[in-house]
Structure formats: structure tokens, C-alpha cells
């Protein structure tokens, strides 16, 4: 083999470059395989009978008529399947009442959550029975034939009602509906700062429930192998690895006999970061019948059976000097958890708990959250999870402070920013931020939107009494991503670690397989991971294949959520590449007949120092490692490495989003004139993908601010239960936005990356609502609840005028 290797051209560097996605060819040609595309021989269909009532005692469930229907294979009540469950559905993050990190005064309240309810239905949509038929249509017919005898109970729907003394209990054994009260910080010290403060701000914000709505609903297919006691389950999930261990426990299936596959998954946004009743039910039915089964969620079913997001009421307080320098932040939350705990329901507020001071330098910090059970669909992660709520509270409150002290919102922020830092810095909530330059990002955002120009136009419109007023909204955010390290998660009572894993396999033909523990569903990991591997190993991007989402292929992993994949899984991959190179260096040195220290990895190959044309590439070394004809002593054949990365800290992406809106004071309509997003997600692997994440995140944030809200009636029926009644914005409602970046490399990991998946959704809502309130400030409007629909805006204007509201 040749020992002369060409240096790669600049074009062969992939990280940071505009590489097109590897995932696209199958997605643009209809060749992708989503769960509903899977058809197995002998497969039967599963349907779930769901409670018609929000709260009702179940006297009886009669499936006999359904069983008699032609084409029906089986029908089961909850009681019929009860013996299938070895354990209840999992909650991985049970939070107890305590003052973090010290006092703990009671055990966490964990509601019993079985895949099918047998005693009481606790929300409209709670699963009560299962029908199995030989066709999709047959299931729909059979569902109608199951008879449930309900004894309706008073439903507990609103937070204040749920926490009232003597309220009907969602879970009888708890007696009341309080889930926990969890607090952080020295309440007395913070109170002193409030007592001493020249200015205090006290605001209340409500975050309506949101329905995540990935365009692919959930779905499950199970193939049982009865003779072997084995099962393969395909699920539209973000978390195949977490599903494997928890479903094994819930079903009593040895973990070694359960394989979970997340095939192509059509979006998740947190709603597929869960382990659901239907996954357990399909496994149980497949085990009972010994036949493959399939369940695919209908959209109206998705609205009640898949977790919701938000549902949080905040009291947000700032203590400040006369000039507007914030000295302390106090946030008190009440959170609506719905009827049960899903996978991480009680932990969601804690993901924001440390971030209520945002990017501002404060002394005092206090956070408290009380969670409550209600007779509604469980809430859980929705894009941003806890951090949009925190950012909304601090960024809305900063505008309130600016109004109070008579300063421009930009000036008040500049007065309070944490100064630039490039080494970890402890903040008042106790976190160590990794790196940041918040004012630089802020300045760039204001420059790009022409902030001064907009303020000029705003005052002109006001002076001439224009009915269409201009508003400018600022939002400087910080988030914490890459949930880690594992010891901190232990202190927070999270049930798993924060690590992730990657394996690199260098094949004798020069091709490279990357196996990742992350589980993408639109984020483009196959592309970004191939960029990293190609650069680190000096091989062409096209020669790298990335495998994911199958527990048999990728046994180690913690999956994809919380903008963690690059900052944890990507670093595991980068680190595995270093392990490959450690071994490859020894083989290269042996073949080049020099000492290992005399070999360096440069320009994509191992080269003899001072004689760079004497070199060995990774593909050449992979071939040598495979033939094993001439390996150094004690070196095993093969070139493969695995690395499990447990990050030492979170990462802290940040940025400023600013928007200009026009508000029609006669109709209440809001139009976004310009939106600028400047994000700092650390170093970037694929700028095109990063930009796409910001586009999508901002769209979801605008949707939250202006359009979306889950609305229930007084009986606990979800009125906004379809894409007709729940308003997801289309292309016609959303603007094109300007995106750009600043970069402060993370100090948490060797690539300096931070994460970007949730940034837009975190930043956008306060930018929009601040802009609308800013437009209407001369009319005396100081608060409009989300979503800022024309009706709400119009009512706020009328109310400020002293008219109808």
C-alpha cells in the first residue's frame, strides 16, 4: 500500500460547513419508513376505548358485544389485562416536597398510573378498554360496541380549584390534589432584599396548556416471537432506550428480550419524550394473542391521549434600585400536571427553576413551585420545557421594570446584563454558566433590526394618532441544555443519568459506521454526526453512515430531548473518534516503523513528524487492523471504539430575539413586521441545520404567543380537540425571520457546542408579547395574556380605556 497521502483540501473539512442532509433523499421521495408504514404478516389492529368523562367512577366495562362483531379478534377491559402489568407506567422524575438542596420532608407522591384505568377515569381520554380487529375500519366499528357504566364525579379543572381545601381528589389515596412544593434559594435573605428595594415589580403570567402536535401522530407496532419470549416494538418515540428499560419493567419482559425501534419519526417536540400506555398495551396484547399488532393514533385522539405542555401560573417579582438595577428575583409557580405523572411531568418546572434571573446579574434568588393534579390530560415536556416559562417571566418583568423606572427596555437590560465571561461563572441560582457575552448578542440584534429607527417611527405614529401602532419587543434568553452531570441529576432526583454513548466502527473497505445513542426525529443527526466523524477521522462525509434509534443496533443511549444531542451524544462521538485515533496511531507508527510519539494526526492522516508525505490514513489502518497480518504486539485486531460521555455541566445557549409588530388598535390584530434572532449556541457543526432549528423554534414560539391555547369546557372536555379548533399557524400566518449568530464556545465540552433545538421557542413568546404591550403602552395597556389574539388585544385596549372588557 502506498505511504504517500494527499493532504485534504479545505473542502474536505465538514464541521462548520454547509453540508446538505443525508436524511433527505428518502424523505423527499416517499421512501421513508414511519411506524404507520410498517405492515407485518398476520398483523391485527388495536384501538383504545377512552373515557367520555373527565372524572368518573367505572362501575363496569362490558366488551362482550365488541367480541361478537365480525372481524374482531379480541377485546379486553382494563381488568382483563391487569395481570399483564408487572409495574405501573414509569415516572422517571418523582419530585417531593422539599427545599433544594437541603431539606426533604416527605416522600414523593407518585400516582398509580396503569395502562388502562379500572377504578376511576381521571381525564376525558383516559384509556379504559382495548379492542383488536383484523382491519383499521373494524377497530373503529368495534370501539362503538364497548359499553362502559360510568358514575360521573365532580371534575377538578382549574389550579385554584384543585388546590382548594376539600376539593374532590383526582387520586383518592392522596386525599387532596397537591403534588409537591419544591423551593430553591434562601427565602428570608431574598425577602430582606425586597424590603430594602426602592422599586418592586409584581406580575402574574399564565401559560396556557399547549398541544404539541407533531404532524406524525404516535403509533406502535409490536412483533412478538412467542416461542422465544421475545418482542420487537416499533414506536414513534424520541426515547427508544428509555422505552426499552421502562417497558421491560412494566411488562415483566427481560430487557434482553425486548428490542425497541424508533423508525423514521415525524417530529416530537417533547410529546414523544415519553413512555405511553399504548406501548405497554400493544406489547400486552401481542403477548396475549401471539400475533403482531398495530395501533396508530388519530389526531383527535392525539389531542387528549398525548401529553400537553405548559399549564403554569406564575407570580414573578423583581426587587430593584431606583435606577432599575435588579437586586433580587422571586418566582412562585403553580403547575397543572393533569391526571397522572407521565415520564418527566413533575420535573418540567425544575428545568426552568434556575433560570428566572435570565441573563441578569442579581444577588438574591428564590424559586418555588407547587404542582397540582387536575382531571385533564397529563402535561409533560413541550419544546423548551420549563425554560420558555422562565424566560417569559423575566423578560416580561424586565419590561415592566423599564416602564416603572421610566427607562427604555434596552437600557434596563444593558444596566443588568451579566458581563462577558469565558470561564464558568456561578450565578445567584447556584448554576455555573459555561460562557457568554449577552450584551454583544443584544447589540447585534438591535443593530440588525434598526432599533433606533423603529423607536423613531413608533413615536411618529403615536404623535400623529395612527390607529396602527408600532411596538418593539426584546427578549434576551438563556437556557440550560445537555441535562447533566449524572451526580447533579441524582441530587434533583432524576431517575437516570445524563450521559450518552457513541461507537465508531472503521470497516476494512474504508467505510465508517457511527452508532449513536441519540434518537433524532427531524434534527439531522445522521448529517451532523457524519460531519464530525469525517473531520476527526479524515474520511469523506459520504463514507460515513450513522445508525440510531434501534436498541439492538445501539444498545447504549439516552435519546433525544432538551437540546442535548450534540452537546452530549455529539461529544461522545467526538471522543470515540479520539479513541479510534489512539489505537490507529500505534498501528500507523508500527507500519511506518517509527515510535508512536513521532507520528501526528494532521491533514486527515497519521504522518511522520517532519516527513509529512510518509503517512497512513484511517482507511488504510482499518484494513491493516482487519487483516491483522502485522499489528504491534498486544494490539487487538479491528478498529472500533465506544465512548460514553457524562458531561461535567450543563451547556447554556443564549441570545436575543427582537421583533417589531404593528397593532391595529381598532381590530386588535397584530402583524409581525420584522423578527431578528441572534443566537449563541457555541460552536456550530452545520449552520444550515442550526438556522432551520431556529426557524422552527421561533415559529412554535410565535404560535404560543399569538395562536395556540388548549381550551376545556366546564365538564373537562377539550374543546380545541382537532387541527380545526386548535390553531396551528400555517405559512400564511408566519413571517420570514432574520437569523444570525454570535459565538462563545462552551467550556463544558471539547467541541465548545451548546445546543439550539429549543432556543427559538424559548425566546419568541416574550419578544412578541413585549412588542404588543410596548405598542399599546400609550393607551395604558400593561398586560395581555397569551395568546395575544385580536380579541384579547382589543379587550385589553377597551379595558385600559375604561370601556368594555
Amino acid at each position: 500500500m502506498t505511504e504517500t497521502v494527499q493532504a485534504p483540501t479545505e473542502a474536505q473539512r465538514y464541521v462548520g460547513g454547509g453540508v446538505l442532509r443525508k436524511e433527505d433523499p428518502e424523505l423527499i421521495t416517499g421512501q421513508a419508513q414511519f411506524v404507520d408504514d410498517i405492515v407485518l404478516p398476520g398483523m391485527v389492529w388495536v384501538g383504545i376505548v377512552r373515557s367520555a368523562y373527565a372524572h368518573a367512577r367505572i362501575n363496569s366495562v362490558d366488551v362482550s358485544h365488541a367480541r361478537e362483531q365480525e372481524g374482531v379478534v379480541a377485546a379486553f377491559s382494563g381488568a382483563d389485562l391487569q395481570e399483564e402489568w408487572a409495574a405501573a407506567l414509569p415516572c422517571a422524575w418523582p419530585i417531593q416536597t422539599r427545599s433544594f438542596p437541603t431539606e426533604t420532608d416527605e416522600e414523593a407522591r407518585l400516582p398509580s398510573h396503569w395502562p388502562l384505568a379500572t377504578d376511576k377515569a381521571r381525564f376525558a381520554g383516559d384509556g379504559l378498554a382495548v379492542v383488536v380487529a383484523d382491519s383499521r375500519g373494524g377497530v373503529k366499528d368495534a370501539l362503538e360496541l364497548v359499553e362502559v357504566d360510568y358514575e360521573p364525579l365532580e371534575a377538578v379543572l382549574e389550579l385554584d380549584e384543585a388546590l382548594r381545601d376539600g376539593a374532590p381528589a383526582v387520586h383518592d389515596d392522596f386525599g387532596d390534589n397537591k403534588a409537591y412544593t419544591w423551593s430553591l434559594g434562601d427565602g428570608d435573605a431574598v425577602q430582606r432584599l425586597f424590603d430594602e428595594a426602592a422599586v418592586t415589580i409584581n406580575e402574574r403570567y399564565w401559560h396556557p396548556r399547549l398541544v404539541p402536535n407533531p404532524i406524525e401522530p404516535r403509533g406502535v407496532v409490536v412483533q412478538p416471537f412467542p416461542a422465544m419470549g421475545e418482542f420487537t416494538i416499533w414506536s414513534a418515540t424520541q426515547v427508544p432506550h428509555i422505552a426499552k428499560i421502562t417497558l421491560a419493567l412494566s411488562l415483566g419482559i427481560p430487557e434482553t428480550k425486548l428490542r425497541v425501534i424508533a423508525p423514521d419519526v415525524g417530529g416530537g417536540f417533547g410529546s414523544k419524550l415519553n413512555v405511553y400506555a399504548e406501548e405497554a398495551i400493544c406489547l400486552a396484547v401481542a403477548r396475549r394473542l401471539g400475533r403482531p399488532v398495530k395501533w396508530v393514533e388519530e389526531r383527535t385522539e392525539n389531542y387528549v391521549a398525548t401529553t400537553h405542555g405548559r399549564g403554569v401560573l406564575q407570580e414573578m417579582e423583581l426587587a430593584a434600585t431606583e435606577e432599575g438595577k435588579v437586586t433580587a428575583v422571586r418566582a412562585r409557580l403553580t403547575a397543572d400536571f393533569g391526571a397522572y405523572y407521565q415520564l418527566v411531568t413533575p420535573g418540567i418546572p425544575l428545568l426552568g427553576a434556575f433560570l428566572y434571573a435570565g441573563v441578569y446579574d442579581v444577588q438574591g434568588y428564590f424559586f418555588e413551585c407547587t404542582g397540582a393534579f387536575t382531571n385533564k390530560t397529563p402535561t409533560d415536556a413541550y419544546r423548551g420545557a420549563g425554560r420558555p416559562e422562565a424566560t417569559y417571566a423575566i423578560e416580561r418583568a424586565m419590561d415592566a421594570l423599564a416602564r416603572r423606572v421610566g427607562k427604555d427596555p434596552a437600557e434596563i437590560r444593558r444596566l443588568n446584563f451579566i458581563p462577558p465571561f469565558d470561564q464558568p461563572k456561578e450565578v445567584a441560582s447556584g448554576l455555573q454558566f459555561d460562557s457568554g457575552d449577552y450584551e454583544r448578542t443584544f447589540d447585534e440584534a438591535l443593530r440588525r433590526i434598526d432599533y433606533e429607527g423603529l423607536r423613531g417611527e413608533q413615536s411618529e405614529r403615536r404623535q400623529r394618532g395612527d390607529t396602527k401602532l408600532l411596538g418593539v419587543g426584546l427578549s434576551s434568553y438563556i437556557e440550560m441544555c445537555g441535562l447533566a452531570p449524572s451526580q447533579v441529576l441524582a441530587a434533583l432526583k432524576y431517575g437516570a443519568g445524563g450521559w450518552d454513548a457513541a461507537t465508531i466502527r472503521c470497516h476494512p473497505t474504508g467505510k465508517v459506521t457511527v452508532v449513536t445513542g441519540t434518537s433524532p426525529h427531524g434534527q439531522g443527526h445522521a448529517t451532523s454526526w457524519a460531519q464530525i466523524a469525517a473531520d476527526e477521522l479524515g474520511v469523506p462525509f459520504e463514507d460515513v453512515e450513522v445508525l440510531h434509534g434501534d436498541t439492538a443496533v445501539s444498545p447504549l443511549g439516552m435519546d433525544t430531548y432538551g437540546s442535548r444531542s450534540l452537546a452530549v451524544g455529539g461529544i461522545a462521538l467526538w471522543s470515540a473518534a479520539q479513541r479510534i485515533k489512539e489505537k490507529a496511531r500505534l498501528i500507523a507508527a508500527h507500519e511506518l516503523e517509527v515510535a508512536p510519539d513521532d507520528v501526528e494526526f494532521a491533514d486527515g492522516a497519521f504522518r511522520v513528524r517532519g516527513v509529512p508525505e510518509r503517512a497512513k490514513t484511517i482507511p488504510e489502518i482499518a484494513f491493516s487492523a482487519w487483516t491483522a497480518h502485522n499489528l504491534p504486539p498486544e494490539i487487538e485486531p479491528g478498529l472500533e471504539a465506544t465512548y460514553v460521555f457524562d458531561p461535567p455541566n450543563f451547556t447554556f445557549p443564549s441570545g436575543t430575539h427582537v421583533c417589531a409588530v404593528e397593532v391595529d388598535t381598532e381590530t386588535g390584530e397584530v402583524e409581525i413586521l420584522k423578527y431578528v434572532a441572534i443566537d449563541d449556541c457555541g460552536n456550530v457543526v452545520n449552520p444550515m441545520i442550526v438556522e432551520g432549528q431556529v426557524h422552527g423554534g421561533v415559529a412554535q414560539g410565535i404560535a404560543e404567543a399569538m395562536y395556540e391555547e388548549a381550551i376545556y369546557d366546564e365538564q373537562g372536555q377539550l374543546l380545541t380537540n382537532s387541527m380545526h379548533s386548535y390553531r396551528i399557524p400555517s405559512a400564511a400566518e408566519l413571517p420570514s425571520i432574520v437569523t444570525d449568530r454570535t459565538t462563545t464556545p462552551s467550556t463544558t465540552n471539547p467541541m465548545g457546542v451548546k445546543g439550539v433545538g429549543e432556543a427559538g421557542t424559548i425566546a419568541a413568546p416574550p419578544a412578541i408579547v413585549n412588542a404588543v404591550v410596548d405598542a399599546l403602552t400609550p393607551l395604558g395597556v400593561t398586560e395581555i395574556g397569551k395568546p395575544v389574539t385580536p380579541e384579547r388585544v382589543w379587550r385589553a385596549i377597551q379595558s385600559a380605556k375604561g370601556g368594555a372588557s
Partner: protein
Amino acid sequence: MRRVAITVNGVRHEAEVEPRQLLVYFLREQLGLTGTNVGCDTTTCGACTVLLDGRSVKACTVLAVQSDGREVTTIEGLGSNGDLHPLQRAFHEEHAVQCGYCTPGMIMAALSLIEEHGSLTEEEVRKGLEGNLCRCTGYQNIVEAILRAADELTAARA
């Protein structure tokens, strides 16, 4: 059961269908053309958009029997493997695809829009796509891709 003859992507298929069978399930389950996805069952999301006699329809709201004697084009009939339609290429090159679940419907809706209008403005694309929801991309790159493909297709025709 009713007997129908439907030409799909240029191939004539004769089949027995239940009167209630939706076109989308005829395509997906009887013909195995799973590129057309189902997102909402209520004609809102547009993931199931196909062309019926050259015009976009939502295949979850058309019965198979209504398609009898007519021509259907799905994403599989558009182009594949090395011979991509300009819209498919533009969706790839403009990063208009994330999870990809809405993509086939989005491309078919865009094709119909271009067929109707020729070259398009951003506003026409945005209004024309009102019936197709995407939850990942914020639509910005989808709009870019369609504008680019529209220019390319109208230039090719001129």
C-alpha cells in the same frame, strides 16, 4: 364492495374497495404507496395531499370510489433516486425538510400551486400553502424552495 379502476402514477389498478375506503388508505394499504402520510384525519394538515387529475386534493377526504376512472399522482410518481423533480431537489438544497412527515404532501401541494400560477411571489406561496401544516421548519425554507422550483419550472417552460 365496489369495483374501481384508478390510475396511480401512470399504472392502472383495478380493485375491490369498501364504499367507505378513503383514497389515502387505498394508496397506502392496498397499493403499498406509503409515501403519502396521514396527519390529522380532518382535511387540515395536508400531509396526505396528492394530485387527482392534476389538481391537489387531500386524500384523507376523498373516497377511493370518487377516484374511480381518474388519475392520481403521489410523491412516488414524481421522481426518485438520481432523477429528482425540481421541487424535490429544491426541498433538499434549501433545507426545507426536517422530520419530513409533511414533505410529500407539501411537495404535491406546491406542484399543484406552480401548475396553476406559474412563477410565484412569496405571498402567493404562503397563501397557497395555507392547507399544509409543518411543525418543524417554520415554513421559511419551504417557501424558499417552492419559489426557486417555480422559477426553474416556469423558465424551463418558457
